[in-house]
């Protein structure tokens, strides 16, 4: 039997991989995928706690997180397309019009 600590550990590792991706990559789409990675890492934690405690509320929270992630991906990709159309780049280091 695998204890809950192992699930929490794997989830922490996945979350940190997502953080490293967001901080180091320059491509906007990769950054979006890394945000999805972090969301799914937190979902693993929620499902693990929910399943080990016998409480269904954690899984319902995961359901809502999935919905919000879908909405976020939809709007975010539309923003990326709009930026690409005006600026012809998906590299966030070159989008510096508002930078001080």
């Amino acid at each position, binding site marked *: 039997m*695998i204890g809950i600590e*192992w699930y929490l550990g794997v989830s922490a590792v996945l979350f940190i991989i997502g953080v490293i991706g967001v901080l*180091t990559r320059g491509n906007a789409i990769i950054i979006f995928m890394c945000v999805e990675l972090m969301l799914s890492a937190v979902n693993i934690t929620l499902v693990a706690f929910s399943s080990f405690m016998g409480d269904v509320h954690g899984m319902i929270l995961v359901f809502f997180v*999935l919905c919000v992630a879908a909405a976020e991906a939809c709007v975010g990709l539309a923003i990326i397309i709009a930026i690409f159309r005006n600026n012809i780049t998906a590299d966030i280091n070159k989008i510096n019009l508002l930078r001080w």
Partner: protein
Amino acid sequence: METFFFVFISTLAIGTALAMVISKNTVNSALFMVLHMLSVAGFYTLLNAQFLAVIQILVYAGAIMVLFLFVIMLLNLDEDEKVVSKIDFKQLISFTLALVVLAQLLYITGNYAGVLPELTGEPIAAVGTVEAIGDELFTTFLLPFEVTAILLTAAVVGAMLLAQKTSNVIDE
């Protein structure tokens, strides 16, 4: 058998996540992300959350990642010149910070497990069924469920408005 499955799934999840971050080609990255989502669905099955496993495959691997792939094809992105260029000061700092946070998280999960509330030793089978989730979702959480519908509608309308061709909306 369960331990073997857990080790296999977690290796797959971490490996595909790393490959997703490292890989140069954006399309490869998205396909690794699909594989990662499948392995997360494997975690859910291991934890007896069948409904969420199916939803994960349908929504994430089926819908969201296809959207990502469409956008990648639409933008026709070239490969990044280099993932890690020379030794960059900013990247070094972010690596160090991320590793510090990882060490903290692992320390907490390893040492403070006794602080957690009453846990059974193993996943409970009757929690993650469609029946249990649907029962709770349509009674206690009915209002958030309806609000989610409004959120998704607003997101779709907003995305269509943002991505439409005419960029001179303000002029008229």
